[in-house]
C-alpha cells in the first residue's frame, strides 16, 4: 500500500489552507481512511489549534528531523477519530529547521503506513513552500474569489508545474459568497477557473461557523448542518475518486447570521406556499 501525499498550498496567506487541511483530513478519516496531517508552517503553527490538539503536542516535526524522537512518537492522535494523526510543526523554530530532503524522507516513510498524507503549506513561495511540496505528488491550490488571491494562486500554479514531483493539481475556491456574485461584486467560480485555467476540486461557501469551529478546536465537517462542512466532505470524496456533483451553494443563506437565516427561511416558505 502506498499512500498519497497531497500538499495544500495557496501562496497568499489567510485564504484557508489550514482550515482546508484540517477539514479534508477529518473528512477523509471519517470515511475510514488513515490520514496524517503534516504541519510545515514552522514557527506559526495553527493546525493543532484547529484540531484542538494543542495541549497534546510533545514532539514536533523538527524533533523528528533532528532525531530526538521516533516518527511514531511525534504523531498525535485525534481526540475523536483514531484514523487521524497530526505531525505538528515546532513553534519555537523557523522554516530553515527542516529541509526539502528531510521532509521528503518523512512523507516517504508515512506513505507506507497511511492512505493519505496531507501537507499544510506555509504562505509564501520561499523555502517553506519548497520544503512543503518536496514530498508531494498532488497539490490542492486554495484561493478565494479575490484578485490578489487569484494572482498569488497563479504564481503558485506556475511553481507547481515547474516542480518535479507534482503530478497533478486542483483548485479549491474558498469563501465564496453567492450573494455577492449575484450582484456582480465578486468574481464567480467560473471566472476564477477561467483566469487560472485549472480544474476545480471544490467550492466552499463563506460560513461564519468556520470562526466558531476554529475557536472551539473542532473541524466544521463534524457539524452536519453546516454547508461549508458538507462542501468539505464532498471535496474529500472527490479526492478519493468519487464523482460528486458540486453543491448548489446558491440556495440557502445560512451564513448571514442566525436571525437573517431564520427570517429568510420563513420568507422562503411563505413564497413557496
Amino acid at each position, binding site marked *: 500500500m502506498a499512500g498519497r501525499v497531497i500538499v495544500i498550498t495557496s501562496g497568499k496567506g489567510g485564504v484557508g489552507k489550514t482550515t482546508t487541511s484540517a477539514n479534508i483530513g477529518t473528512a477523509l478519516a471519517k470515511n475510514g481512511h488513515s490520514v496524517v496531517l503534516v504541519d510545515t508552517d514552522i*514557527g506559526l503553527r495553527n493546525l493543532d489549534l484547529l484540531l*484542538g490538539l*494543542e*495541549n*497534546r503536542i*510533545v514532539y514536533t516535526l523538527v*524533533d523528528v528531523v533532528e532525531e*530526538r*524522537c521516533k516518527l511514531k*512518537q511525534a504523531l498525535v492522535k485525534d*481526540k475523536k477519530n483514531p484514523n487521524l494523526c497530526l505531525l505538528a510543526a*515546532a*513553534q*519555537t*523554530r*523557523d522554516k530553515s529547521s527542516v529541509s526539502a530532503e528531510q521532509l521528503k524522507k518523512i512523507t516517504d516513510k508515512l506513505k507506507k503506513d497511511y492512505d493519505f498524507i496531507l501537507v499544510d503549506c506555509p504562505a509564501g513561495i520561499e523555502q517553506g513552500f519548497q520544503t512543503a511540496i518536496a514530498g508531494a505528488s498532488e497539490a490542492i491550490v486554495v484561493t478565494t474569489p479575490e484578485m490578489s488571491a487569484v494572482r498569488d494562486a497563479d504564481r503558485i500554479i506556475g511553481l507547481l508545474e515547474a516542480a518535479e514531483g507534482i503530478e497533478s493539481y486542483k483548485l479549491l475556491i474558498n469563501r465564496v459568497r453567492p450573494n455577492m456574485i449575484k450582484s456582480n461584486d465578486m468574481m464567480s467560480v467560473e471566472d476564477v477557473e477561467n483566469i487560472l485555467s485549472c480544474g476545480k476540486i471544490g467550492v466552499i461557501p463563506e460560513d461564519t461557523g468556520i470562526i466558531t469551529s476554529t*475557536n*472551539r*478546536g473542532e473541524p466544521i465537517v463534524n457539524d452536519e448542518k453546516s454547508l461549508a462542512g458538507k462542501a468539505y466532505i464532498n471535496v474529500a470524496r472527490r479526492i478519493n475518486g468519487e464523482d460528486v456533483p458540486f453543491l448548489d451553494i446558491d440556495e440557502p443563506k445560512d451564513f448571514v447570521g442566525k436571525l437573517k437565516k431564520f427570517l429568510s427561511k420563513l420568507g422562503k416558505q411563505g413564497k413557496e406556499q
Partner: protein
Amino acid sequence: MEQCLDDNMYVVDLGEVNSAPEIIFELSSVLETAEAKNKRICLKLGDVSLNQAQILSIKSLINGIDSTLSSIDTKSAETEKVALSLGLIVSNVLPENSTDTVPAEPYKSAEELKEEQNVQDPYEIVEESDIAPDDLQNPEQEIVEISENQVQDNTEPQADENQENVNENENVKDELDVIFGSGAIQPNIFDAEFKNEEYSTNEELEDIVVPEEEYTKEDMEIEAFPTKYIKQTIRSGQVINYEGNIVIIGDCHPGCEITAFGDITVWGVLSGIAHAGSAGNQKARVRALKMNAIQLRIANFYSRRPDALNTVYIEKTDSYTPEEARIVNDEIVVFKIND
C-alpha cells in the same frame, strides 16, 4: 595571599557521596564550621557527574562564607570538563601540609584521568576545556576569569553551539537575544517516560491524599540554584532556558516554552509550556498567578491542560488566586493557594 597559599587551603573530602544534592547537603554542613571561612576550598569528589549549574551552586555556597572554590578533584570526566570550562583547577596537587585530616588520594593529571576512564568526548562544546595543562598552572589568573565569565557561562552554555557568532563579551541585551532568538534549545526530556495526562486542578483535590512535605536535598539544591529574573511578557515562540530558577514578571503567552533546572515562578498568567526541574529535580515547582499552562512538566513528569479548559480565554481581572503545581503521588497537581 600568594605566600600563605598553603595555609589558606581547606580540603573537603566528599569522595563517598554519590549524588549531586547530597554533595550540596554535605558541603553546606561542612562549610558551617569556622575553619572553612576565608579559605580556598579544595573539593574532593568521587564518581559523581556534576553539571555546570550544580558546580555553580556549589561555588555560590562557598562564596557565601567568604571562601573561594579553587580546585576540584574528581573521578568523573564530565565534572572535570565542566569544571575546566569554569576555569577551576581540576585534580591539582594537594599541599602536603594542608589542614586536611583525610589522606589525599594520589594525584592524577587531567590527561591521565581521561585516558584511564576511556572518556569519549562526543560534545566538545566548551572551548575553555581545550586549555592546555600549562595554562592551568597559574591559579590566580584562572580565578579572575571565572568571575568575569560566570554569568554568561551559566546562562546559555548550549546556545553558543547554535549561534557561533555570539561574542562572549557582549552586553546583557545581546545575552537576552540569545535566549529569545532562534537558538532555541529543547529541554532534555527525551529519555523521560511519556506521560501525557491531564493535570488535576484544585476542584478534584478532595480525593487526593497529599503526603506531608519533607525538606530534602532536592529542596536544598533548588535553593542553591542561581535565579534569573525577567521583567517582560513572554510571547509565542520565545524560549527561555536557564540552569537555575526563573522568575518572570509578566504573562507567558501560549506557544512559549520556559525550562528551568529549578522552580518557575510567573507573576502573571502562565499559558505556555513550563518545565521545572528539567534536570530531574522532582521537588521543583511551577507557580503562577493564573495557571493556564498548555503543558506542565516537572522533572520526568508530563501533564497537559484539561481539554475542557482548551477554549477558555483568560480575561484579565483585578484579583487572581495564585496557583502552584507540584508532584504529588507521581502526578502533577495544581494547588490553589488561598491562605
